[in-house]
Every structure is written in C-alpha cells, then in structure tokens.
C-alpha cells in the first residue's frame, strides 16, 4: 500500500535539499515530481526503508539525467558528476523557504495557490487541475509560468508570512471539489507551517480552519445545498476538531499579539461552544467583531457585525448598523432580508431574499436564498 501522504510530506524537504545543492528551483521541482511518479509505480511493491533518502537519490538522478540530455543537446562534452555532492543536510528552514517562494508576492493568487499545492503539497498537476476544474494542460502552463516568475527570486531571501497565510486561506476556502480535499490539504500545510514558525497569526489561521472544518459534515445537505449555521445539526459537528481548534486558539491568545485570524477563530469558537443556536453568546461575538473591525476596517466585517448586533440587541439595532454599510457590498441584500424577517417585515424580507438570490455569487447560495424567499412568500399567501 502506497503511503501517498508520506510522499507528499517529504516533497518540500527534498526540493529544498536539491535547491540547497545549487539546482534551480524549477528544475528541482520537476526532478522531484518525476521521482514522486516513480515512487507511485514502485513503492506499492516494495517501500524503501528510508523513503526520504530514496526520494532524494532518485530526484538527484532525474536531475542529472535532465542535465545530461540538456548538455548533449548542446553537444558539449562536459563531465557530469554521477554521485550526489556531500551537501549540507536539509533543515526545516528549507521547507519554510519553499512556502515563501511559492507564495512570492510577484505571483497572482491563483498562480501562488497552484505552485504551493504542487511544490509544497506534493499534489500532481492532474489533481490540481481537477480540483480547480480546468484542463491539465492549462494547469501545467499556469504552474510552469509561476515557476518562471519566481525563478529569479533568491531562495534565501526572507519571505512574507502574511502572503503564505493568504494562499493557505484561499486553498482552504476552495473546499472540496473533484477527488482532492483542498480544505484538508490546507489544514495539513498550515499545521506544518505552525510547527516550523511558532507564529501566532499562523496558529490563529490553523484554529480558524479547524473550527470551520469541524462543521463541514453539517454544512451541506445530501443534495449539496447549504445549511445555515442556525439550522445545522450540531451533533454532526466534529468535536475532536473543535477541541483541537479551541486548544490551538487558547495557546495563541495566551501570547501578546492579536491578529485578524485569531479574532475570526474566536468567533468560530463561540459558535462551536453553543450546544443549540439559541444559546450562542452573541454579545461576546459582537465584541470580537469590534476587535476585528479595529484590526481590518473591512466592510465585510462591518456587514457580519450588523448581523451579530441583530442577534445580540435585536433586529432594529442590526438594521441600524447595516444602514452604515456600503449597500453595494456582496451579501448586503441577503443580510438585510434576514434582519427584516427578524423584525417581522415579511413582505420586505421576501422581496429582499428574491433580489439577493438574483445576485448570489454561487449556486449553493442562490439556491438557499431562493428557498428563503419561497418560504416567506408561502407564509404571506397564508
């Protein structure tokens, strides 16, 4: 039985060693992908005793083969070393640098995501293409362009952790399509990053992911439609993920710096803490939204805060808060519909839900909003 996860965990470290030995990043990445493919073919029969050593040796050989054919193509007679140079052993720093390189600020978010999933996550181009619903050739080009873009960057240059976190957050939010669980993959990589950096904001992101992932079994019906938080069957939440998320969050909150992901994770933890929707501590949640607003001044946070105020202080207060938020913001109409229904103005709520459905950004939300509009219209018809 091939241990695919083990292979993928070894990927960034092996690329890191090759780069440290002087191989350029794009070539190293290609060599390791080829070694991974060879492992997929041969390991099911006989897994090597030292998987990392095996991968490194095979990847090094693949690199030499590639260089040899390059050399013979140029018809030069250069001697190529056959044995690996006794280079320095790899360190956790190599893997960390690879995270930074793949989320390099010169890359667009989509390119950074694709490169991270391949070079750090060890996924094949085909798997990434399937997850993002594009042809394999398109994804292959997206990845090789990304590699060219970062080709000039020095491997040793200090990276920006914030861009890495944004990339992992994007991967997590993509959720589950095709046969690759991107949410689980994002959690795996964030866990790895947390263990390497001991950075507060990284553990804030990990806590946020764990707490949201815990709710996944309850979030969709069997037909794929969305179940809002208040209607979710809470017995289907994954309590061990919640416990882990809360523990990670508490450890992070114990330190001084408070970041955006902490505040979001704290809100997710307060939801997770309520055995029934009616027992949610909305007053504390509003407090965390205030904190979040202080950190980001994001209009999306303002929007979510007005919903929380609607729960804590009643729908009239919620609508008053919503009135100060840009009405052009996505989901503004949906929020308004929700608060109008709570305030008892069913006619306005039905109309707003129907409007919100027309501008919904995805199918699941459109379906949900249409059902809300239909439900209220049915009540109005008596």
């Amino acid at each position, binding site marked *: 039985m091939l241990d695919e996860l083990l292979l993928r965990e070894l990927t960034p470290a092996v690329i890191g060693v090759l780069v440290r030995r002087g191989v350029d990043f794009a070539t190293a990445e290609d060599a390791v992908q080829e070694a991974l493919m060879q492992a997929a073919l041969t390991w099911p029969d006989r897994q090597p005793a030292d998987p990392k050593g095996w991968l490194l040796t095979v990847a090094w050989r693949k690199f030499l083969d590639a260089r040899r054919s390059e050399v013979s193509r140029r018809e030069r007679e250069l001697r190529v070393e056959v044995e690996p140079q006794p280079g320095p052993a790899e360190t956790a720093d190599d893997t960390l640098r690879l995270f930074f390189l793949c989320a390099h600020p010169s890359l*667009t*978010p*989509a*390119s950074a995501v*694709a490169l991270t999933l391949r070079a750090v996550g060890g996924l094949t181009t085909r798997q990434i293409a399937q997850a*993002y*619903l*594009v*042809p394999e*050739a*398109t*994804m292959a*080009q*997206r*990845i090789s*362009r990304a590699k060219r873009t970062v080709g000039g960057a020095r491997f040793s240059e200090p990276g920006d952790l914030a861009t890495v976190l944004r990339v992992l957050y994007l991967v*997590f*939010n*993509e*959720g*589950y*399509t095709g046969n690759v669980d991107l*949410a689980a993959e994002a959690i795996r990589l964030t866990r790895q990053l947390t263990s390497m950096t001991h950075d507060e904001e990284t553990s804030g992101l990990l806590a*946020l992911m764990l707490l*949201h*992932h815990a*709710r*996944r079994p309850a*979030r969709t019906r069997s037909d794929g439609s*969305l179940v*809002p*938080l208040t209607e979710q069957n809470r017995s289907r939440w994954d309590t061990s993920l919640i416990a882990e998320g809360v523990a990670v969050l508490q450890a992070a909150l114990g330190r001084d710096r408070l970041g955006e992901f902490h505040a*979001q994770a704290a809100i997710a933890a307060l939801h997770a803490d309520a055995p029934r929707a009616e027992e949610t501590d909305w007053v504390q949640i509003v407090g965390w939204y205030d904190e979040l607003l202080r950190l980001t001044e994001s209009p999306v946070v303002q929007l979510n805060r007005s919903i929380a105020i609607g729960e804590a202080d009643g729908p009239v207060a919620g609508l008053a808060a919503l009135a100060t938020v840009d009405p052009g913001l996505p*989901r503004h109409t949906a929020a308004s519909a929700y608060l109008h229904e709570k305030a008892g103005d069913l006619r306005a709520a039905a109309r707003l839900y129907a409007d919100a459905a027309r501008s*919904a*950004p*995805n*199918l*699941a*939300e*459109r379906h949900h909003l249409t059902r809300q509009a239909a439900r209220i219209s049915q009540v109005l018809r008596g």
Partner: protein
Amino acid sequence: MTKYLFLKHYRGAPEAVNAVPMDQWTPKEVDDHMQYMSDFATRLVGTGEFVDSQALSSEGTFVRYDGEGRPPVTDGPFAETKDLIAGWMVIDVDTYERAIALAGELSAAPGAGGKPIHEWLEVRPFLSAPAPTVTE
C-alpha cells in the same frame, strides 16, 4: 480565479461591424479565421487560462417532457427569429477586466477582406459551484 463563458451567436447578437456572412468569404479568409481562433486558444492554454471551446451546429430542436409514458415532444427546426448560439469558449482568469480584454481580442478575429469582424460576444461569469467555506 473566475470562469467566464464567451458566447458567439449565429443570430440574436447586435450586428457586427464586418458582418459579411462566412459563406461569402474567400477560402483563405475562412482558413485565416480558423487559424486565429486556434492560435487564440493555444495562447490561453499557455497562459494557464483556457478551459474549453466548442462550436455548435446551427441545426437544433426544442424538446420537452409530455407526461408519464409518453415520448418527449419535439419542436423544430428553430424559427428564423430564435436567438442562435454558434459556439463558446470558457476561460478561467484573475479579473473581470482580463475577461473583457480577452473577449475583445476574440472579437477581432478576421473575417471578410481579412479585416476584424468586430463581432459582439456575450461574456457571462459562472456561478461557481462551491460556496466559500468561511461564510455561512
């Protein structure tokens, strides 16, 4: 990334600037047009933005269910007034501006006299299937 659908019409879009019908072009002009479309798609594979491209026959039929145990009802050929899709291309790009720029380039495909058709293309964003995880 967002996926966009570019729709080409046989009928139903506003009239193009260079609206000479394809059957009145020279064979060379037809070949050049096809080459332009194929080069465009190849280039988008190269930029990591291509998803799909298909052409449709101008023939077609309306079909609907007609009740339990009965064969579906068909209605065709299409009336002369029906909006008629000629084909599509699906792209996956970072921004709306990029989608518009690419549609503009596609609309510049050469037609009669080797000049751009300036054809009107319909640009439609996909309703992406998965909802972001962190919004409930």
